[in-house]
């Protein structure tokens, strides 16, 4: 293989202008593939992180209330006109056991019981509708990193304290240390100290959420000792679907994964991935065609030299290898430059870009792109190399 590689490298060096041009072409193509792939995966990562920063991977609730109908008697036809039942706030039966059962499932990393229901928040003449969320703080933080989202005060939900969203604080003119009156209807009222203000970055949550201690929320919502939701965190976020189905099967409770809740987001992510793959595929095709055409020209230009080499005893297989090596070297070198350029683009994006999110080059991306480009280069060289190996030496030497 030594002489084939040597001849290949000398041919590439001799046609320097051609080689450099096609190297640039390959580099641009690979840079585009690397950058676009990294950009889209960074964007998706960010979207998923943001989405999961404010919601659990799986949300387990009591099953919805439905009308139970007596079965129709045999031979009769039953026509039913039913009113859907109102969905009153219902606790999960035996939630302690449910929590422990789910917590022991392999793949589950955190389980957090939550009691949640509607109320009004009042300060002076202003009234806002709020969502009371009673949490077991230590457990809840393993599901939603609320402590990372505090903008004021401290995260404290114990002994008459609570934390509120930033928008709600603005609407009611609340500050850390202020008082907030909560009215859950039927005369159940409480006044809490605003210990801190958080901002989750989701307007709806920031305008409505009031986090309280589990017990206080239970008494306000008239669900003593009960919880309405069990939030679950899983190891593999994309396995949340399967986990939800499993929990449903095990407990009979309604379990919904973040993927079901965000079906549109999942659809958008899938379309993005598809378009990234399409871009990469077509860029790779055009790079391969570029390599093929450069080598085809090279074979035409070197017809006579190929003839001489054949006359001197160079075998067909060796001639084939000379041009395959050229394709592989072009692919490898071009993709190395391109990967570096792609990395540079990503770094520039992180430094000078909109800074909405950062692009991390997945470690596998560069070697994968280089391996792919080398393979594509070798593949693209197949036709010209085959032609070179099939040249009739007599004809080739006569070739002017």
């Amino acid at each position: 293989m030594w002489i084939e590689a040597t001849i290949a490298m000398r041919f590439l060096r001799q046609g320097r202008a051609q080689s450099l041009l096609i190297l640039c072409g390959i580099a641009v193509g690979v840079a585009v593939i690397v950058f676009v792939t990294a950009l889209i995966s960074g964007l998706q990562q960010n979207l998923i992180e943001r989405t999961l920063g404010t919601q659990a991977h799986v949300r387990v609730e009591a099953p919805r209330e439905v009308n139970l109908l007596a079965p129709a008697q045999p031979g009769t036809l039953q026509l039913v006109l039913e009113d859907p039942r109102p969905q009153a706030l219902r606790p999960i039966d035996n939630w302690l056991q449910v929590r422990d059962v789910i917590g022991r499932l392999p793949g589950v990393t955190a389980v957090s019981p939550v009691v949640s229901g509607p109320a009004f928040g009042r300060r002076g003449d202003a009234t806002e509708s709020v969502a009371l969320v009673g949490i077991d703080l230590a457990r809840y933080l393993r599901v939603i990193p609320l402590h990372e989202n505090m903008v004021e005060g401290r995260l404290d939900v114990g002994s008459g304290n609570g934390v509120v969203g930033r928008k709600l604080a603005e609407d009611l003119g609340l500050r850390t240390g202020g008082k907030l009156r909560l009215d859950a209807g039927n005369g159940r009222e409480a006044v809490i100290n605003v210990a801190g203000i958080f901002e989750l970055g989701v307007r709806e949550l920031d305008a409505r959420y009031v986090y309280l201690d589990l017990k206080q929320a239970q008494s306000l919502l008239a669900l003593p000792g009960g919880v309405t939701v069990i939030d679950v965190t899983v190891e593999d976020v994309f396995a949340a679907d399967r986990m939800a189905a499993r929990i449903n099967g095990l407990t009979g409770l309604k379990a919904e994964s973040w993927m079901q809740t965000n079906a549109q987001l999942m659809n958008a992510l899938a379309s993005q991935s598809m378009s990234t793959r399409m871009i990469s595929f077509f860029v790779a095709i055009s790079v391969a065609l570029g390599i093929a055409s450069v080598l085809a020209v090279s074979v035409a230009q070197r017809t006579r030299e190929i003839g001489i080499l054949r006359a001197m005893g160079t075998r067909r297989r060796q001639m084939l290898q000379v041009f395959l090596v050229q394709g592989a070297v072009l692919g490898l070198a071009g993709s190395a430059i391109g990967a570096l350029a792609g990395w540079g683009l990503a770094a520039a994006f992180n430094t000078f870009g909109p800074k909405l999110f950062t692009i991390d080059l997945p470690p596998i991306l560069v070697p994968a792109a280089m391996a792919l480009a080398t393979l594509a280069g070798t593949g693209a060289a197949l036709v010209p190399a085959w032609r070179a190996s099939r040249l009739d030496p007599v004809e080739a030497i006569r070739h002017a």
Partner: protein
Amino acid sequence: MPEPREVLRLEGLRKSYNIGKPNEVEVLHGIDLRLDSADFAALVGPSGSGKSTLLNLVGLLDSPTAGELYLGGQPTREMDDEARTALRGRHIGFVFQFHHLIGAFTALENVLMPWMVANGKPTPEIVDIARGLLADVGLEKFADRRPDQLSGGQQQRVAIARALVTRPSLLLADEPTGNLDTRTAADVFALLRRFNEQSGCAVLVVTHDPRLAGTCDRTISLVDGAIVSDKRHG
């Protein structure tokens, strides 16, 4: 002087083109020829007489339509491309009318090329042999020059050194002096003659130049695809 041994034997060699088509034409009509190790033969004949075709057949670059070609006693007609290529690399050296060096390699590397395509990375011994051959053709100082930095005569001398590096038993030269001036042509011919005498390698030269043909030991005349005379002289 050792006893001459047979290098090449042609028996009833025929070559046709466009076989099976209306324009089928036979270029060589049954050539019988034998070349021995000490032979220094000129192949002469008018244009279109089939000299180049014969040379290509002898050089195993092309295969005959009928007849047999023995190289070093081995029949070659039934060989596949791989075997013919290997045999060609071992036994035959080529010198073409247009020097035909590989532009991407230096003079020394060009001389080494036939050895390298057969054996890979050159050993110090073969490099010494190649340098010696370059010295023999008077180009030891030009070993590291590229072909485009050499004159036509120098390039042709490099090509001769290249043809000899594998110590072939048969050297084929197609109008090796065709594009050289008279003096350089005589020098190149003298070189071929010297190698023929030194190494006992048989030489077959196609030439148009009757003066140069006259310096050979043997003149084979080809007319219309048939040998019309085969004279030994000198």
